[in-house]
């Protein structure tokens, strides 16, 4: 079996993360319960006429994939695999409301077409002229991990040499409004630095895109090796720690050799307990890292977690802003990632220096 390497990364998030010459040195602090991305200049990458028609999710996906491709030094890839929890949700909202408001009359197809979940993957294929394998996974908090797993399997078996993998989700007004009503979004504004102390229900919604070129050959620009990945539809809080250990054992890795753990804490008092189970037991004394206080929560936010892990391993720099505890750790060779959303759809990923 071949090894799988992350050879390039690009993240568009509510921080200025799309420029890889910087690494979270300058942060935007939010006092909010919904935060939007810092937009790259889309017209530098997409002709303005085309960009005007494109949903934000498509623009984020297309630009993030172009930047990732550029960094990898490739012109094209063998496959494009995308994860998205909600797809281009604004177009879904636009089409549903138009159906209701106009009693099914005077509708135009653009919003319907863009509401299709695989629109982003399809548009990237169009932009790149890529006729290869093109899948879109749409499973809440593991949408991105499903895409990553698919890519990893193909690369390990050498069915493909280079794959573009990404996660993307955009915010929509109606979606935000109704998720506030069911307390999936915090009712109060919260400062980025105080997210985990909030002790209230719900999280801060964000949006973003994270794209990566994965290959089964190492190159100069390689960030890290994706060693293993597992997803779970269910997992109870009491067995998370045990499952983490089992997962590491399966991959012949000692818990003590983990240099850092990247966690998906989103400040929801009802569900952060899963992470606390890890940080109070096996991973108590190792470097703990979190990121949703600066990116917000979205179904594919864990793509930003992967971006963070890959960049830490390559640069051996741990930005202050993402430290969850204070340790003396200075070498980052093996990083474990764990994420879940609302107690469902859990994932463990192991990254290793290459």
């Amino acid at each position, binding site marked *: 079996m071949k090894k799988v390497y992350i050879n390039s990364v690009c993240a568009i998030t509510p921080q200025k993360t799309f420029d890889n010459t910087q690494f979270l040195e300058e942060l935007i602090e939010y006092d909010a319960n919904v935060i939007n991305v810092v937009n790259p200049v889309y017209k530098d990458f997409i002709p303005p006429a085309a960009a005007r028609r494109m949903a934000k999710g498509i623009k984020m996906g297309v630009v993030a994939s172009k930047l990732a491709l550029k960094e990898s030094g490739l012109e094209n890839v063998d496959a494009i695999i995308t994860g998205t929890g*909600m797809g281009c949700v604004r177009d879904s909202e636009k089409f*549903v409301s138009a159906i209701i408001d106009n009693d099914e*009359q005077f509708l135009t197809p653009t919003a319907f077409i863009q509401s299709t*979940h695989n629109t982003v993957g399809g548009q990237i294929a169009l932009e790149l002229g890529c006729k290869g394998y*093109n*899948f879109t996974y749409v*499973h809440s908090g593991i949408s991105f991990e499903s895409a990553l797993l698919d890519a990893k399997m193909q690369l390990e078996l050498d069915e493909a040499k280079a794959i573009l993998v990404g996660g993307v989700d955009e915010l929509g007004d109606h979606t935000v409004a*109704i998720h506030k009503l069911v307390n*999936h979004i915090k009712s109060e504004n919260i400062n980025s630095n105080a997210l985990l102390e909030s002790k209230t229900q719900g999280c801060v919604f964000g949006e973003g895109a994270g794209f990566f070129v994965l290959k089964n050959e190492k190159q100069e620009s390689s960030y890290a090796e994706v060693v293993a990945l597992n*997803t779970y539809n269910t997992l109870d809080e009491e067995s998370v720690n045990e499952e983490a250990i089992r997962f590491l054992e399966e991959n012949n890795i000692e818990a003590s050799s983990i240099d850092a753990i990247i966690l998906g804490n989103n400040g929801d008092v009802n569900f952060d307990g899963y992470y606390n189970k890890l940080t109070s037991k096996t991973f108590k004394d190792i470097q703990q890292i979190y990121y949703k206080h600066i990116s917000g929560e979205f179904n594919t936010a864990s793509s930003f977690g992967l971006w963070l892990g890959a960049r830490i391993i390559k640069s051996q720099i741990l930005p202050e802003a993402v430290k969850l505890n204070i340790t003396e750790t200075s070498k980052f060779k093996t990083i474990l990632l764990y994420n879940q959303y609302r107690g469902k759809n859990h994932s463990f990923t192991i990254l290793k220096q290459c």
Partner: protein
Amino acid sequence: MSKGVAITGMGIISAIGNNVAENYQSLIDGKKGITRVEKIDTIHKDVIMVGEIDITNEAFEKKLGLAKDNNYSRTAFLGAVAAKQAIADAGITNINKYKTGLISATSVGGMDRTETHYYNYLTEAEPRKYIDGHHAGDSSQKIAEQLGIEKSLVTTISTACSSAANAIMFGARLIKSGQLDRVVVGGTDCMSKFTINGFKTLMILSDTYNTPFDENRKGLNLGEAAAFLVLESDAVVKAENKTVLAYVKGYANANDAHHQTASSDHGDGATLAMEKALKVAGLEPKDIDYINAHGTATGNNDLSEGRAIIRVFGDNVPDFSSTKAYTGHTLAAAGGIEAVYSVLALQNNIIYPNLNFKTQMKEFNITPQLTLKEKHLDVIMSNSFGFGGNCSTVIFSKEA
């Protein structure tokens, strides 16, 4: 030559039957499930025809024994019913005895509830339970729960009308690579105003019965359905002494990279998908005994697919037909429905007629199979194509 992945169970619910036996009976009787719209209140009801399932949501609730406060979408109801049938058909009593996953496919997800309660959510508390049921993964989570799948790989694919074919493909690869011992694969989509109006704006809905591969075809009929297959590793088949219904022999996905919603004139993506699937199966075009075509009866699809078939098979195009005239186009479920039909065709050595065909298309001289045909079948190819240039081919075989 690569070895096929065993199919050991299947379940289905569609406009032509509530289980596998009923679907097969309708197929051989030439009985269509296409009618005027009955279950959805749409202003288009007199100008379109659809393939609806004649069971209400309330009846599904009862059938599944769900509490009154459940938040199932119709997509989840259909999926749960079909997936449970598949598990029973495979003779599985202890689902977690082997590492079992679920790969489902949907495009509509919980949109039926969303479009009903969209503005009510803002003012009424009661319907808000459906907010969490909107996203596409929710129906899969519920199906997994119904099957008792825990702590395992459960995910959802949404690539428009090729979704379920892609779920079968991913599932087969998970078995081959040893990630899972057993996987339930397929798709589910219910009827919704969203899709009715979406396809209406694209002007590809027929005002009468859809007529695949006919010169005067006027577009598709939407359908609702769910279908699932159980795939098991050779080790499980051996240990449990399982009867194998058929094998997933080959598969491929390719992208047309031509247009967001239209297929290229010459079917580049479709050609690639069929060729790659043959390669994965280690087969030649001459080995295919029957093609269950995508054949949606839109002007664009049937021309593009027909040309792609000719590009792959040359002068020796095998018998082919589309079963969309029976069920309507069931979107993300279509690849699952047609997988079940392909397995049934292999089991019974039967080719289904391409109903409603009258006039030969002028762009080429291939004609679909028009009558029920008995013929020894070893290998069947099934095509599914979707928006976003998504083209998928799955090959089913009698022998591994």
